[in-house]
């Protein structure tokens, strides 16, 4: 028998709980279906005792279920209590596998074979997805595990770890301390993991500590017997193989919920995994009567999910509800001095700015919520050339003056946008912009803009085209109008290269010029059979200029040093540009002859090439500023670290014991302030920001989720308790910094407060990293505290110059 409800809520995360609780209070017949045995599986999986934050602070909570910042345990117990108090009808162990039917008559099937009927469905299943399983014959939970809580609890076993990502490697290495471990990789190399982890596993395999089966996929497991071990068989490149093991730990990642959601009929705008389902302003998906809320709808924080749970029930019941953010938007629009309603202003924005016209209104609302609205007075500075800011501006009214170099400023008016160059390339601003008459601007942060571009193909296309146009104009033909350049720009190509990919090779026919849009490239020359880097070219510049003059062979190899995008213009197309612009040929010829001379003088410096190669491997190709220590000047005094700790809540943001050394150049573990910071990518409260000076820093609204720590490829972010870290002056003067001596234990990166002080109950571990001392008047404390001049913070341009000065 199937039961029928007015509302079925799928997923008992914060969003689902809130929706079900509201339905229960209103005495609407409802059911809450949760696949796991307890509420809020995502929160259950946070680390024990985690302090959960209630960001964004300014957003009010609108829900029957309580939520304020506190420990994970406290919040979960409050939620359990609230479920009971409100009389929510919840079913645990109820995993939804399909949803069919239409508004008024949905049929929901569960994995346990039951069916539920409902008039409307609220989908709040989050984005964690399902863990991938081995899916082989003989698999059972007492032998195959998908999680490893405490590696030290297992000793003296033969263990198979299946997988090649970070989790698999970390588990395998930790288990190998006390066990015999074989790691099973279905490919012939480890490529998906972080560099640090790849190095770790390769070293362990080389030393024989861990055995590795490459090109191998588990195909079956023998049934349990009296033996403690079972036989696992594999299909490998050379046929079948078997191993006897005590247990298998499979870390195969999670299947994102997207395909499941699509199977319900919900549409997405494109194939990009980052794109979000198409929703109305009231969270209704492309299936009428099926609503999507919470993380799955693109709202990454708990409070947002809970508010939407409440609102969506109101909507289903046909009541007019102002979203919880209404007052915030009203406040925001006050600067504009208009009497129009929030909805009217939003509609006007979408109408008057073509770029936003196709954006779905819900997403647009969110975008504006993240944005700032400005009404600058005439002549006011919006941003200066060479600032490192990367927000995006659209002009709602009036105009702005864009001052590129000394020429006449470009006037840009209503409906246009600017700031996309820095947004897309991560580079400094290429022009100064001032407000014109009656100017009204919308400033959108980079993260919100990227979210938009991932979902709205039309917007991305417009932006890409404009980028190519403006970059060609700025680089080659400032005198020419956009219209004149249009045909040339539309024939230009946008290319993307992975780190290490060759863009063109020495000796190739030179046929096109590449403008580097983001990332950077290294220029290499053959030297005794080896490719040695001679130089490095950053985004905003071009390479391969000989290509457009015709008749040349490539004189060097150009390779992407990090993930890089270029705009390429071929010779034929460039000829049109030359025809339009008299001086351009002379300018390009000059650059060509300059580079030819450079190549000559660089020829002899093999050592310089080696250092450059090393630095590029250290990720300096995407750095804007990096701490280098000259080992032949460093006296081990650690004053740099002490200075950093003392000026930053007692935790040093640089680790001098870490990092690699080549010749005498040491790159200690410290932030590189990347052009396109990986750490920013996945920060729920958007706490990582970039200051105008280029400093990437973490704001106070960090919720301590640890995403940035995982995303930074250079391991420079730590999770730490705030502390005072004050040291005794006299002690430090007479005893100095203790160096680890007779301690054969690995000398960990122990921070003063991590080592000793036990955390106070109220303290939460937050992400900390170098902020380049942007709040100190004199600049980087570490550099200023070094007594010998060993420590220095340099931009890539400076270090390339340093190297050539030293060695050429």
């Amino acid at each position, binding site marked *: 028998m199937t039961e029928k409800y007015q509302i079925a809520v799928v997923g008992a995360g914060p969003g689902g709980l809130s929706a079900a609780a509201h339905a229960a209070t209103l005495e609407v017949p409802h059911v809450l279906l949760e696949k796991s045995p307890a509420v809020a599986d995502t929160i259950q999986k946070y680390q024990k005792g985690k302090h959960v934050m209630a960001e964004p602070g300014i957003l009010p909570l609108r829900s029957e279920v309580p939520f304020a910042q506190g420990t994970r345990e406290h919040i979960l117990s409050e939620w359990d209590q609230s479920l009971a108090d409100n009389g929510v009808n919840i079913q645990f162990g109820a995993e939804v596998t399909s949803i069919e039917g239409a508004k008024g008559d949905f049929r929901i099937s569960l994995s346990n074979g039951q069916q539920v009927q409902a008039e409307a469905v609220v989908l709040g299943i989050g984005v964690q997805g399902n863990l991938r399983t081995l899916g082989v014959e003989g698999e059972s939970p007492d032998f195959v595990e998908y999680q490893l809580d405490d590696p030290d609890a297992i000793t003296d076993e033969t263990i198979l770890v299946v997988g090649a990502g970070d989790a698999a490697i970390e588990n395998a290495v930790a288990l190998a301390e006390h066990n015999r471990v074989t790691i099973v990789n279905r490919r012939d190399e480890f490529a998906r993991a972080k560099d640090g982890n790849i190095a770790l596993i390769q070293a362990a395999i080389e030393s024989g500590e861990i055995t590795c089966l490459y090109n191998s996929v588990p195909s079956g497991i023998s049934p349990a017997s009296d033996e403690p071990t079972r036989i696992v068989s594999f299909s490998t490149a050379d046929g079948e193989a078997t191993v006897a093991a005590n247990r298998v730990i499979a870390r195969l990642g999670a299947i994102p919920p997207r395909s499941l959601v699509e199977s319900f009929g919900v549409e997405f705008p494109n194939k990009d995994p980052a794109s979000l389902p198409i929703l109305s302003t009231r969270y209704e998906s492309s299936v009428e009567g099926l609503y999507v809320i919470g993380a799955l709808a693109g709202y990454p924080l708990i409070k947002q999910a809970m508010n939407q749970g409440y609102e969506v029930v109101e909507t289903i019941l046909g009541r007019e509800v102002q979203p919880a953010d209404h007052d915030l938007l009203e406040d925001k629009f006050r600067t504009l001095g208009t009497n129009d309603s929030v909805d009217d202003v939003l509609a006007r924005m979408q109408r008057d700015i073509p770029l936003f016209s196709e954006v779905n209104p819900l997403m647009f609302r969110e975008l504006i919520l993240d944005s700032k609205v400005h009404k600058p007075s005439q002549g006011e500075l919006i941003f200066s050339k060479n600032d490192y800011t990367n927000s995006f501006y659209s002009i709602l009214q009036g105009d702005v003056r864009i001052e590129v170099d000394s020429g006449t400023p470009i006037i840009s008016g209503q409906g246009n946008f600017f700031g996309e160059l820095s947004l897309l390339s991560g580079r400094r601003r290429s022009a100064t912009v001032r407000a014109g008459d009656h100017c009204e601007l919308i400033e959108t942060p980079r993260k919100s803009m990227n979210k938009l571009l991932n979902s709205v193909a039309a917007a991305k296309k417009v932006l890409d085209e404009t980028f190519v146009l403006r970059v060609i104009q700025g680089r080659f033909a400032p005198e020419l109008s956009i219209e004149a350049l249009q045909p040339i720009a539309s024939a230009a190509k946008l290319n993307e290269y992975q780190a290490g990919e060759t863009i063109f090779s020495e000796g190739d026919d030179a046929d096109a010029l590449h403008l580097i849009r983001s990332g950077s490239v290294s220029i290499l020359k053959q030297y005794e059979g080896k490719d040695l880097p001679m130089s490095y070219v950053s985004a905003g510049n071009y390479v391969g200029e000989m290509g457009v003059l015709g008749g040349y062979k490539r004189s060097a190899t150009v390779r992407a040093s990090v993930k890089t995008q270029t705009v390429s213009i071929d010779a034929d197309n460039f000829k049109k540009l030359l025809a339009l612009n008299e001086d351009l040929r002379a300018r390009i010829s000059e650059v060509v002859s300059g580079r030819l001379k450079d190549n000559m003088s660089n020829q002899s410096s093999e050592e310089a090439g080696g250092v450059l190669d090393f630095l590029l491997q250290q990720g300096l190709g995407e750095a804007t500023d990096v701490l280098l220590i000259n080992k032949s000047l460093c006296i081990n005094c650690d*004053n740099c670290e002490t200075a950093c700790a003392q000026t930053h809540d007692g935790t040093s943001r640089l680790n001098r014991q*870490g990092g690699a050394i080549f010749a005498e150049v040491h790159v200690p573990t410290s932030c590189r302030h990347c052009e396109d910071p990986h750490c920013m990518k996945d920060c729920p409260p958007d706490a990582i920001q970039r200051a105008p000076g280029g400093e990437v820093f973490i704001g106070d609204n960090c919720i301590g989720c640890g995403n940035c720590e995982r995303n930074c490829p250079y391991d420079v972010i730590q999770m730490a308790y705030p502390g005072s870290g004050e040291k005794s002056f006299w002690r430090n003067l007479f005893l100095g910094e203790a*160096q680890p*001596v007779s301690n054969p234990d690995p000398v960990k990166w122990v921070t003063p407060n991590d080592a000793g002080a036990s955390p106070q109950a109220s303290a939460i571990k937050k992400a900390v990293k170098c902020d380049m001392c942007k709040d100190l008047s*004199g600049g980087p404390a570490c550099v200023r505290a070094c007594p010998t001049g060993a420590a220095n913070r340099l931009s890539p341009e*400076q270090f390339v110059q340093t190297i050539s000065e030293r060695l050429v």
Partner: protein
Amino acid sequence: MFESFLIHRSMRWLRWSLVLMLIALVGYVAQDLPVPRNGGTAVGYALGTVAALLMVWLTWLGRRKRNYRSSFGTVKGWTSAHVYLGVALIVVATLHTGFQFGANVHTLAFVLMMLVCLSGIYGVWAYSRYPFKINENSKGKMRAALFEELKEEDRQIVRLVGQVDQEVDKVVRGALERTEIGTRYIDQLLGKDRSSVQLPDKGLCDNRDMKTVADYLVGVLDTCDNPSEAEAVQRLLTLMGRRARLLSRIREDVRLAELLRIWLIIHIPFAFAALAAVAIHVVAVFIYW
């Protein structure tokens, strides 16, 4: 871009130091006095005042170095000035004495000051020599990485001894445990290896450079008739050799790092002692005047 404290700003402090020394010398030589030159003449007073002020300022480096928020110059600039003006102090103070020494507090103050200055000069020499040697010795690895490597090596050894005879297992594990990297400071300074090992019939033996345990393993290998065990022992031998080299590199790292900073043990306390002695010297001079 990497400009050391010695060439900071094209050696501007060296130039000031030379000027100061020159003025002091000219002033000293140009005196036309009925008595032998000493600290009580007009020039003597002037030199004494400059020297005393210099000493106070030189000591202030210890404070400035720890004012991490200060943007009053950089510590590098301060060190540069400290070193060059410190050398000028030797000349200024020596001229101030007029070469009149005796067994009194005045000469004590001078001797203490000279000790500080001479240790400082050793320091500058150490700073320009040892960092280079340290980097050369550790082959591009920080100490933490060297210890990490040692731990890795030990892990492999422990794994291997699981496959050999109980007794060998015990000896080898014992050798790992009794490895000393320099528990006593003097051992660290000399890079002395006091490792030992407990052998079945010989008791506790010296195990410098893992030699004794290696000899023991060779003995085991000779009498071993189980091929798989022999192979394990052979690999143990290789690992022990690697471990010995790694240990000596760590010891050398510790030794060099200590030599790099040992002079501060004299420089800092004696700086304060000298300052105190100078204070007494000044008071004494004014009382007995």
